[in-house]
């Protein structure tokens, strides 16, 4: 279980994490969703004892992340954004050393290493130096390294950033399996709305260091109401006229209307017909986390490189 109370991190004048509070229950998959630089990695680093908070408190399975660092480290497995691997060693050597550093005997560490290589599908590659591994293989080895001491809570900082869709799917399956088979609690950060939607039981949205919403994907989508109708026009003036009649918002010739079901839809169609306006497209859409994000932050969700 993770309990976080008004956690804050300041670097000089700048507050990068601002009084964040939340709780993650045992066996839950919890996603921290936010754009680049929102404070996700800093939060993970504080929760995993790598950096000290400037204020507030956090507990991992009842252990304080500042006062009981050692106990906390035994509870958690952490896969940081950059994989933590020394490329001069082989996969097996890395796993062996990791086990020994967590207090296992040579035999225990050896058995665990082989078990984990099998688990992540690298049993053929254990004797190879990691420098020869592909990106996806490195991620899988990194995951294996975080599991060596059988942690009950896993922290995954952007586990699929930069991976191709196939590798991403593989990691998702792995995460679900760990959660289902071993009841591992999983705290993951992501900048992909889809990832949070697919994987997480609960999602917290973080923007500019502040936690702005929290709930299941459905709860969050519910916050902005039900379905909506989306119309695109070739002329901005047409969009404005429909907006004047039904409300909603216009952006670059695209009109978004809140919908109350079939009735709104037929009213809109009738209105278009009567006023001889032609819409290029007309869609009825379920709200997405994208919409939630725009609604809550007032700005569009920016992905990396955009």
């Amino acid at each position, binding site marked *: 279980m993770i309990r976080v109370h008004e956690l804050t991190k300041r670097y000089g004048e700048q507050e990068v994490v601002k009084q964040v509070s939340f709780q993650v229950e045992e066996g839950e998959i919890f996603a921290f969703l936010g754009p680049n630089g929102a404070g996700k990695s800093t939060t993970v680093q504080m929760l995993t004892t790598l950096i000290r908070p400037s204020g507030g408190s956090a507990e991992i399975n009842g252990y304080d992340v500042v006062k009981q660092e050692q106990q906390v480290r035994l509870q958690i497995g952490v896969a940081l954004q950059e994989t933590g691997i020394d490329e*001069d060693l082989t996969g097996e050597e890395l796993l062996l050393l990791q086990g020994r550093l967590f207090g296992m005997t040579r035999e225990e560490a050896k058995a665990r290493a082989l078990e984990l290589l099998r688990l992540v599908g690298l049993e053929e590659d254990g004797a190879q130096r990691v420098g020869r591994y592909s990106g996806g293989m490195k991620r899988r080895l990194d995951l294996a390294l975080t599991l060596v001491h059988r942690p009950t809570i896993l922290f995954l900082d952007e586990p699929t950033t930069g991976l191709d869709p196939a590798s991403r799917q593989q990691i998702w399956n792995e995460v679900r399996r760990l959660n289902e088979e071993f009841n591992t609690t999983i705290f993951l950060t992501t900048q992909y709305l889809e990832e949070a939607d697919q994987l997480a039981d609960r999602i917290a949205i973080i923007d500019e260091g502040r936690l702005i919403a929290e709930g299941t994907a459905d709860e969050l989508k519910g916050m902005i109401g039900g379905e909506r109708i989306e119309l695109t026009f070739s002329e901005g003036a047409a969009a404005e006229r429909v907006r004047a009649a039904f409300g909603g918002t216009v952006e670059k010739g695209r009109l978004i209307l809140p919908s109350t079901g079939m009735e709104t839809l037929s009213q809109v169609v009738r209105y278009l017909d009567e006023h001889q306006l032609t819409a290029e497209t007309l869609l009825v859409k379920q709200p997405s986390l994208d919409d939630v994000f725009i609604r809550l932050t007032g700005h569009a969700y920016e992905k990396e490189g955009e």
Partner: protein
Amino acid sequence: MWKETLLLTKRSLLVTLRNPFSFIPNLIISVFFLLVYTSGLSGISALPQFGGVDYLNFILPVSIVSGAVGGAGGAGQALVKDIENGYFARLLLTPVSRTAIVLGPMIAGMLQLFVQTLLIFGMAFLLGLTIPAGAPGFFFTVLLALGFGLGFAGYSVGVALKTRNAQAAQAGTLLFFPLIFLSTTFVPKELIEAEWLKVAATINPTTYIMEGMRGVLLWEDIDWSALSKGLGVALVLGLAMVVFAATNARSALKK
């Protein structure tokens, strides 16, 4: 803590061995120094102030110390690589003490300098070195080299943790290269004429290491006063650098 230190030292040694170019050039340079100084400058020892000492015995410590200064940066560079590839963070996430985490690369660096010192000795023996004090002379010289090596490896590890920059870790130790020349490196203190150079040589820790080595290498009777000063300086330097490196372990992750 010692078990973990041993495990981490082994790992650092393994990584060093798999990157032979991290230590071979410096090794060649140290041996080269010895060859050049011995063949080019050995006439100096005919001067009466040398008291009949063989120039090879006199210059051997220079080769060992400059080899240590040049080679110690490797420990810091290896650590910068760990920080960059994220392995250092993974180590910080284990329950292992921060001291063990920085001691691993330091001790590996020291052992690398130990092997280097033995090879320089081997070369010197091939050139006809005889040690008037016998085995103790050899033993204490190696001990001084170990202490000095640990200090410098620790210094480069500390700089690496502070700057997270491989060039800085290397340059940090090379900064001390002039120390070799601001010392009694090529001539005994009695022969130094410039007053400022005498002062520099007196406050320079390198002087005491080198004098300590000479105290056991030059004569039949060991100069215990020079030796104990040298060992004292090596011990203080080594301990100070362990503390310097360990206190910087956490700050290496700050972004």
